């Protein structure tokens, strides 16, 4: 099947690298025009070049998802300059790994601000346009860490568990507006964020815990985002689809 997103405008947060960048490019390959948001503009420009080389429009916007004005500017620019806002991928996230007893209040607040409040602000702000048009696809990047517990990352895990239930709650509220809200739970993906967590030569022991014996490529997660961003998944509502090579099969 050809997933055809021509005529759709997608906003991807955290689009400068990792899953966000792969997702932005995959959405463009499927035909969407893409608004790229992140704190570091230079990384966005690089992704935008790749998207434009595929014949799609790209609009990089420096954004702090924890700031309401910044998020509202992102969404209004997307809508006004690109001519719509059909798909939102809430991907931006940070991690402050370490034992709980060593977690500072500032680190906790920062994780919650980016990972959770950022998703709230972006979803609400995009919802303003989506509800008006009675169409939308919201895909939240959660994590297997939001389902299965592990040591030394409590703030990240808590934020991701919250996103999974936020997804369900908004899904049930917005489906009457023809807006599908779903979440994706990646396991170990080859990204800088994961490298940050596994630094110190833990890679081999982590690989042993993944039945498929490899990390995911960001592109594999992006494939799932594209499917959930398309009308082929209209009957999938409020789901958290895990993509983890068998890491967390209950």
């Amino acid at each position: 099947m050809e997933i055809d997103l021509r005529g759709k405008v997608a906003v991807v947060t955290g689009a400068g690298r990792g899953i966000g960048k792969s997702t932005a490019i995959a959405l463009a390959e499927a035909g969407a025009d893409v608004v790229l948001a992140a704190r570091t503009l230079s990384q966005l420009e690089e992704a935008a070049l790749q998207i434009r080389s595929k014949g799609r429009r790209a609009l990089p916007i420096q954004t702090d998802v924890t700031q309401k004005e910044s998020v509202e500017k992102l969404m209004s620019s997307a809508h006004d300059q690109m001519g719509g806002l059909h798909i939102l991928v809430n991907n931006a996230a940070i991690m402050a790994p370490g034992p709980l007893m060593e977690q500072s209040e500032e680190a906790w607040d920062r994780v919650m601000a980016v990972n959770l409040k950022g998703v709230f602000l972006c979803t609400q702000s995009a919802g303003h346009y989506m509800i008006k048009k009675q169409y939308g696809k919201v895909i939240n990047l959660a994590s297997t860490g939001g389902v299965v517990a592990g040591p030394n990352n409590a703030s990240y895990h808590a934020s991701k568990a919250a996103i999974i239930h936020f997804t369900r709650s908004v899904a049930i509220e917005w489906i009457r507006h023809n807006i599908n809200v779903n979440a994706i739970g990646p396991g170990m993906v080859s990204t800088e964020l994961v490298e940050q967590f596994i630094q110190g030569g833990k890679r081999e022991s982590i690989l042993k815990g993944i039945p498929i014996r490899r990390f995911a490529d960001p592109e594999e997660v992006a494939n799932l985002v594209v499917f959930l961003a398309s009308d082929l998944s209209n009957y999938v509502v409020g789901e958290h689809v895990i993509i983890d090579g068998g890491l967390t099969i209950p």
Partner: protein
Amino acid sequence: MIVRLSNKVAIVTGSGRGIGEAIIYRFIEEGAKVTLCDVDEKALKAVKSKVDEMNGTCLLAVGNIADRDFVGKMVDNTIKAFGTLDVMVNNAAITRDAILHKMTQAQWEEVMDVNLKGTFNCLQAAATYMRSQGKGTIINISSTSRYGNVGQLNYATSKGGVVAMTRTAAKELCRKGVTCNCISPGTIWTDMLKAVPEQGQERLKAGIPLGRFGEPEEVAHLAVFLASDEASYITGQTINCDGGSFMA
């Protein structure tokens, strides 16, 4: 994104009608060769003639998946005819609805025979071949009835069992290059649902946040995605396709 099943060989059980039939047509559209399987020969022949119209390639297997010999032959014949088996869709299932205190032993056993033992037979036969090849994917069809559904103690139990089979098979097969996932459809507009009186249908619809029944094609789209190479990192998962009735 182009999702294709070019040159893949698939078996879809219960493909005489409903969700299984829809999966067949979508698989054919994406370039797969398929084996149709159902107890209802007349229904299968009707599906085959549509597949022929689409210039698709298919093989017929008429029989009951509860019969191990039949399942073994179906898998063998498929591999003989098409050279391999890449995708096994375990969709065949029956209902024998009754409220708990009125459920007969026969109603319990008939459902378990097809939905659990039949699915096991197919899963095992397909997995045995796929692990020897070091590749393949299995898609089981459960149901949101697995969360509990009045009048379906037998069916709901069997569909919960299908999820457990999915997880266990995924764990066992992962290192052999074989993935196993499950789709859990909600209330889909099939013959099973059309048989429900109109009042009952309205009640069911009222419980779906999306406000409508699902089309068999919507389940089939998800099956195509899971059967494709694009879904290669997904295994052991059960995905509800239910308009938001249950969110997992």
